[in-house]
């Protein structure tokens, strides 16, 4: 199973039950990178894809349980118990900004390999950094 997560400079993900930020270029990159696999997410996340091709997007509240090994899971809000033994890839998008946060990404990446890193210009962010971590 593969995770997709967006974080700020302090590994923050959310504040006051809302995403810290969003960017249409990040969504485009997510859809391009994950082709042709399925992407699981909840209703809250689906809302930001409303103008994109959602044909590969599966929506469920318990999507971490339903996702197969090759599927991607886009996590923004809520606390999910992640069975880390099932994870073989984490796609981390860095906003390269500092936002307020009260919910953080806290998976220990020791033992993971940074397989790929790229930077690109966001629509509302000067620079987005995408990291691909694999076991």
């Amino acid at each position: 199973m593969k995770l997709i997560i967006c974080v700020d400079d302090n590994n923050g993900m959310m504040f006051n039950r809302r995403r810290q930020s969003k960017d249409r270029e990040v969504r485009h990159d997510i859809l391009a990178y994950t082709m042709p696999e399925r992407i699981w997410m909840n209703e809250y996340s689906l809302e930001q894809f409303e103008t994109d091709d959602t044909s590969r997007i599966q929506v469920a509240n318990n999507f971490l349980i339903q996702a197969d090994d090759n599927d991607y899971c886009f996590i923004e809000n809520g606390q999910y118990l992640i069975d880390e033994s099932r994870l073989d890839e984490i796609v981390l998008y860095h906003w390269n900004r500092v936002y307020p946060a009260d919910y953080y990404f806290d998976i220990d990446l020791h033992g993971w390999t940074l397989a790929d890193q790229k930077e690109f210009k966001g629509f509302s962010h000067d620079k987005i950094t995408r990291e691909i971590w694999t076991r």
Partner: protein
Amino acid sequence: MDKMKKLKLLLANIILAGVLVLGGCADAGDSSQSSSSKETTTQESASSEDQNTNAEDNSDDTSAQADSGNTAGSDTAGKTKAAASKAKTSAVSTSKIPKYSGSPYIKVHNNVPFFKKSDLTKKVFEKYSKLDALGRCRTAYANVCKATMPTEKRGRIGMVKPSGWHTVKYNNVDGKYLYNRCHLIGYQLTAENANESNLMTGTRYLNVDGMLPFENMVADYVKETNNHVLYRVTPIYTDENLLADGVLMEAESVEDKGKGISYCVYVYNVQPGIKIDYETGDSSAKDSRRSGQSSAKGTYIINENTNKFHKPDCRSVKMMKDKNKKTYTGKRSELINSGYEPCKNCNP
């Protein structure tokens, strides 16, 4: 200061506190304007000699009581009394805000801003309150959107000396200077640069660690969505202090009724390691022997890429690349003097 002025100042502060309950500082006398035009209200500093000045100043704040159900639209005295009584029940007052304990901000009112539903419109405006009798800035309030955002780089603001201003440096302060001229509403949101009604004396910590992340969140949301965000910043003073104890920051996105942006936080105007006299703005380094923290030896993890240092069990250490990671054992104060910043999460 004579007794009359003191009384008027006290009244102004009570009214200001009342704003926080009743929410908003909509101008009751506002004429209708198209939503595409930008309405900016930046008033000149009131004359201290004018007996009616404070009443006029109060009108900025008393008009905010519109949602209290007070129908005395033009009766400033009536609104003032209503505001004073409301202020007694305000959930936001300096006496009720917990002391600073390591986080640059604290959530207030369950992190729900005090705006009314009727405030959430697309009408673009910016309102900057007159300076009070002590020359202190007060509430700044705007409906932020792409139209209010700057199209050029920020200019000089050094000519403005907000109340309590001192130019003073410390080695253990990021950027050395203790105080910044802090925009109440950040330049990136409304392009107000050297407006003295939008600038307060704030610590580096308040400006960068406290307020900036919240501004960033609003700015990037507006750029991405082209939506509007109601945004209000209120400095909170104790008595006649020239330096604010902190600021109340409120924001709520309009088109999605707060689903995108919604917060209500109090940001502390403090600087770790520095003692501040809020009456005058004077400052001094805290006694490291008494605090025990700066001179204590410990083991820290330095990130050579970000120039920050962490406790060994900080979550950020787990994310650190090995090539950037360096273990240091020694005095915390030496790390700061060497230019490293403490992590805001683990607060080493």
